[in-house]
């Protein structure tokens, strides 16, 4: 058992070396993680579905090809968990929604196709907030995911399952998505590394859309070295995503160990304002001191429009969501209401209105098709998804477009310009990922606005399109992880990873493990 647990506690990079040398079979490694899932996931709830048979078959195939010296992909034999929002051909992809409970993806997302081509072992699908809307994973239609560091607390979200499965050693690598912080925030709250790439760095083809101008796919891992390995596997231009960037993908895993000599780090004045927990603030300041001891220079900077970021985000994201989620109409795929019941209900309403001679009521009565849409959507979507569709539809409706959406797009440019300005003076921006450590399950479910404000430090990177990484930088007095966020200019993922790696070399926060 001890060799078993030391195997799953070693890094993905170390596991890959053992696999490549022939000192470890993928079947053994995959089985070790399946055993870990079997013993821990009843408590954590990170996985919606574990693909045991397929994973073991993939692993056996990799082992066989390796033994006969056949060519293998760059992650050959390494298990990877995938957030249940990326299409995987012929398997269920639910987005943690009743709407898609039985949906089988007709094709692979580009990210899943790249993982398959890399011979990664697709071990299972992780839980999330429904359609990636939320910051606690409590909006999943199917199950709660618990924070491995304290099972009474939320893992964050929306990629809560993706972060929790890495934190609890149920997968060495996992794929998340980040629209307003959904990789970095759960990574921070679960004490793992999570990277949101530059908008367009990773293809969104086959990623179920939430807010198309903000969504990005990215890696979660134990270390920045492991995150680099996964990022270089999934990044790159894709003809099927017109917003993907046609730029070469650096060999992140090769450069990650080179420290950034004389790196200039910016601390954002506005990040250390009221609301920031004192233990989080001091852990972040200590992390910055570590950088100084490694030769970094530190400068205070200002992002004057950052205070508007959450408001800007909660206009743009719901507007795009309301448009994207219009496709769930109960016709082409997804949940449809019981038709006979619906038609009966409608006939009864018509009869009552006719009896009352209510002409206005009759003229407003839904057609059967409209009622089918309305009932199917209302039954299929959860409360938070409906709230955001309503907010976005309102903001885009006649008379409000200029006041909300157009205005938010202008403020978005101001937010970006603040970053462009700041990055003239510094190479990286360092700060907290969240103002507080992990909150209790249920603590914020009845207060949507407070839940939205959790995104304070993360949404700006999505609005500006810049890359960001979250890495462990300490623990509070309750033993909950604290995350450090680093931000870099567009397409400087390499700088982020090298910056994260040099900090990891000087500290051991990333090596701590929760007791489950």
């Amino acid at each position, binding site marked *: 058992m001890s060799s078993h647990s030391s195997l799953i506690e070693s890094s993905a990079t170390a596991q890959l070396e053992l696999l490549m040398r022939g000192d470890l079979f993928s079947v053994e490694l995959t089985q070790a993680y399946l055993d870990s899932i079997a013993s821990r996931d009843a408590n954590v709830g990170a996985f919606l579905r574990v693909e045991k048979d397929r994973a073991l078959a993939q692993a056996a195939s990799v082992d066989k090809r390796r033994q006969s010296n056949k060519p293998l992909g760059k992650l050959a034999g390494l298990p990877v968990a995938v957030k249940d929002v990326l299409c995987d051909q012929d398997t269920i992809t639910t987005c943690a929604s009743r709407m898609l409970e039985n949906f089988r993806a007709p094709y692979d997302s580009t990210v899943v196709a790249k993982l398959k081509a890399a011979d990664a072992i697709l071990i299972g699908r992780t839980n999330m907030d429904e359609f990636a809307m939320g910051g606690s994973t409590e909006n999943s239609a199917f199950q709660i995911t618990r924070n491995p560091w304290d099972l009474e607390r939320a893992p964050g979200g929306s990629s809560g399952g993706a972060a929790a499965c890495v934190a609890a050693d149920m997968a060495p690598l996992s794929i998340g998505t980040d629209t307003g912080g959904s990789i970095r925030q759960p990574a921070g709250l679960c004490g793992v590394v999570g990277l949101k790439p530059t*908008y367009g760095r990773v293809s969104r083809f086959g990623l179920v859309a939430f807010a198309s101008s903000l969504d990005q796919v990215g890696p979660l891992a134990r270390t920045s070295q492991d995150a680099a390995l996964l990022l270089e596997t999934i990044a790159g231009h894709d003809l099927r995503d017109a917003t993907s960037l046609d730029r070469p993908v650096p060999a992140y895993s090769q450069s990650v160990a080179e420290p950034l000599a004389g790196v200039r780090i910016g601390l954002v004045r506005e990040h250390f304002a009221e609301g920031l927990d004192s233990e989080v603030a001091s852990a972040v300041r200590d992390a910055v001191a570590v950088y100084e001891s490694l030769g970094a220079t530190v400068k205070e900077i200002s992002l004057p429009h950052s205070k508007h970021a959450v408001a800007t985000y909660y206009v743009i994201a719901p507007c795009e969501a309301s448009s994207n989620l219009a496709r769930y109409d109960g016709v082409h795929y997804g949940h449809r209401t019981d038709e006979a019941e619906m038609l009966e209900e409608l006939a009864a309403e018509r009869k009552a209105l006719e009896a009352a001679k209510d002409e206005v009521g009759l003229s407003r009565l839904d057609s059967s*098709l409209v009622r089918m849409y309305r009932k199917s959507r209302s039954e299929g979507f959860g409360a938070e998804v409906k709230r955001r569709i*309503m*907010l976005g539809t*309102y903001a885009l409706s006649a008379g409000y477009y200029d006041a909300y959406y157009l205005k938010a797009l202008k403020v978005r440019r101001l937010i970006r310009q603040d970053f462009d300005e700041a990055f003239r003076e510094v190479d990286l921006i360092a700060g907290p990922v969240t103002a507080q450590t992990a909150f209790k399950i249920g603590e914020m479910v009845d207060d949507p606005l407070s839940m939205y404000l959790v995104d304070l430090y993360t949404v700006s990177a999505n609005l500006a399109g810049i890359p960001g990484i979250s890495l462990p930088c300490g623990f509070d007095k309750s033993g909950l992880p604290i995350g450090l966020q680093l931000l870099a200019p567009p397409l400087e993922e390499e700088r982020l990873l090298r910056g994260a790696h040099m900090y990891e070399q000087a500290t051991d926060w990333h090596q701590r493990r929760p007791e489950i």
Partner: protein
Amino acid sequence: MAITRSDVEKVSLLARLQFSDSELDRLTGELAQIVEYVDHLSEVPTEGIEPMAHAVEVHNVFVSDEVMPSLPRDKALANAPRHNDRAFLVPPVLG
């Protein structure tokens, strides 16, 4: 701009959603609170600022006009709640 219950009702039709009376009451309160919060954007001076629709400016992306494989009909219909092997079926639209 305070959001009213009748706004919420109208928007629910536009959004093709349906709510019970108690849900409408709750939503009206929640949306009013969120709208009040995002209304602060109106105070930000944005004269002469171009809206930013995408985070990285991607200009026209052209692809060559080649015939590529597309989703076969049986696969496109496979997830449909109701179909007749040729088309998606919906409730009667007229009448």
